[in-house]
């Protein structure tokens, strides 16, 4: 009987065990046990604070119009993710997944890192790099002092070699990503936001300056920048807008009349919505900054760890950066005249908008694009896919706006898109198509990149 077991069961089992254990030994050499505490064991407060500081820098740094701001947020978010990726189970590098990203240093899993310290070093360096030449002594001092204060707090009880290694790792990650950023077309674009010389296309349908003090449109070549995901530019292509016509019986004229009548009949609430979402550069931290402020609040509400916050910021960073490139490509492909210029010329020369018209073509709406993209990230990160979330946006209280409440992220994005129609600065079509395109951008970010799951 014993011989039978040996022959039929035990012997093969012993052989399998020997083979398995030898395989296991080999694997250990390739993938050593990760000795660092996981990213989910750290608070995300410092990360949230850095993105709040991003808002302050965006408002107060010369040259940071909406596209430039979205790009700066974009690279900071990527640096934040890559610097803690080694501490997130199943987190793949964005190298090989994002256009133009060269290999990003990988942490050595045989030695210990403090991911919060790595993140602190990476973000501070990337912020200095993104705002670089236009930083003032005061704004640079804000980054430096945040970095030093965080490092002091995070280093308590951590051995010096872990601190040094983590700082060094964070810096090397940031340096690699910054180097890659130099070739995307937006490097130091804050020095030349109007990208002159640029010849305005001529024609009745074409954009003309809406403010004599700003005769040139902002960043006309931004659409040729390298997106993080090619699909966000190649596959996200808004349909052609309604054919331009000055004829009072045309569909285009009707669109303009739609804007005119809306502005004339706005309710007090609609005027408030138009102003709430105005997000003027240099008064606020631009539309992308508003969306990042919303994310900061969502992370606070959910007590998100460094793990979840890093992934959320990376997703939103990619979405916002690409939404602006995709939108700007569309804007300068069509070069469509703004409603205020059309209405003054063909309908009513005394027409006045509720808020100022930004200096770039109408189709499609940047706000609609970016809020659509952001909403898809929020839906993915904070809901079961239906978008339902009881949310009150407090981020504009600082600028004298009462908070606004939403029960669904899609509703919030739609309100943001519609705000431009109430403001009289976009045709409704700009907003509806922009929102759809932005949602596609956000969806691509969620689906085309391998993201870690089961985040805390």
């Amino acid at each position, binding site marked *: 009987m014993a011989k039978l077991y040996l022959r039929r069961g035990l012997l093969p089992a012993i052989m399998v065990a020997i083979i398995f254990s030898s395989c296991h030994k080999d694997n250990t050499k390739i993938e050593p046990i990760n000795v660092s505490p996981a990213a989910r064991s750290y608070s995300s407060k410092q990360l949230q604070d850095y993105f709040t500081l991003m808002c302050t820098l965006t408002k107060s740094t010369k040259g940071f119009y909406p596209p430039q701001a979205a790009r700066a947020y974009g690279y900071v978010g990527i640096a934040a993710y890559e610097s803690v990726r080694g501490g997130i189970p199943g987190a793949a590098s964005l190298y090989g997944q994002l256009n133009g990203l060269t290999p990003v240093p990988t942490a050595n899993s045989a030695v210990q890192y403090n991911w919060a310290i790595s993140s602190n070093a990476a973000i501070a360096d990337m912020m200095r790099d993104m705002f670089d030449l236009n930083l003032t002594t005061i704004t640079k001092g804000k980054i430096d002092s945040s970095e030093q204060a965080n490092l002091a707090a995070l280093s308590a009880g951590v051995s010096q070699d872990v601190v040094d290694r983590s700082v060094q790792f964070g810096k090397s990650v940031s340096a690699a990503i910054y180097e890659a950023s130099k070739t995307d077309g937006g490097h130091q674009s804050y020095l030349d936001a109007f990208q002159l010389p640029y010849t305005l296309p001529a024609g009745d349908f074409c954009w003309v300056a809406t403010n004599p003090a700003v005769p040139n449109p902002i960043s006309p070549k931004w659409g040729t920048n390298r997106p993080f995901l090619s699909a966000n530019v190649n596959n996200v292509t808004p349909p052609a807008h309604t054919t331009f016509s000055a004829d009072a019986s045309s569909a285009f004229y009707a669109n303009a009349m739609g804007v005119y009548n809306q502005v004339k009949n706005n*309710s007090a609430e609609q005027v408030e919505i138009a102003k709430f979402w105005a997000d003027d550069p240099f008064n606020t931290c631009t539309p992308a900054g508003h969306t990042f402020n919303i994310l900061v609040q969502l992370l606070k509400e959910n007590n998100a760890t460094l793990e979840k916050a890093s992934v959320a910021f990376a997703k939103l960073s990619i979405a916002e950066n690409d939404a602006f490139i995709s939108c700007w490509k569309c804007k300068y492909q069509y070069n469509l005249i703004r409603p205020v210029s059309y209405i003054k010329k063909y309908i009513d020369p005394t027409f006045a908008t509720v808020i100022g018209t930004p200096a770039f073509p109408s189709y499609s709406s940047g706000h609609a694009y970016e809020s659509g993209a952001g909403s898809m990230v929020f839906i993915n990160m904070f809901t079961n896919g239906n978008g339902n979330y009881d949310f009150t946006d407090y981020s504009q209280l600082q600028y*004298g706006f009462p908070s606004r409440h*939403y029960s669904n992220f899609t509703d919030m994005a739609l309100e943001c898109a519609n705000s431009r129609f109430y403001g009289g600065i976009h045709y409704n079509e700009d907003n509806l198509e922009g929102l759809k395109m932005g949602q596609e951008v956000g969806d691509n970010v969620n689906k085309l990149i391998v993201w870690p799951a089961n985040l805390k």
Partner: protein
Amino acid sequence: MRLLFCCLVVVVMSCNNPAPKNTGKDGRLDRLADRSCRAISIRQQRFALANQIRFATDTLATLKGKNDTMRLHNELQICLRQKDSLLKASLALADTIRMQLDSMMPYSDKAAQKQFTAKLDSTLKARGCEVTTREDNIRH
């Protein structure tokens, strides 16, 4: 022994007396409301001034080379200077409000968050500051 016990109860009760604690919270809320009121006022001035500037620049562009526009031009320069000083005031106030809000807002407790919002709104309303009714948010 009984006297000692009574003294202890009095001491404990005075420590737990909610009145001073509430006064502290209310004091912080009052300060936040003060600043928010100022921010609302600055915001209204900012948008009104932006309208004035738009009107003046539009008019100047229309009248270019036709009339004596010196007066309007001077007015525009005054508006632009006002805009700069309002912007500085707005940005400085924004940072203070944001930090104060962050230190007071119970972000992770929805019920407490709503309570806080309602209290802030009623304080602002009592001071005559503009508040939009949340229930009036437009649904599309």
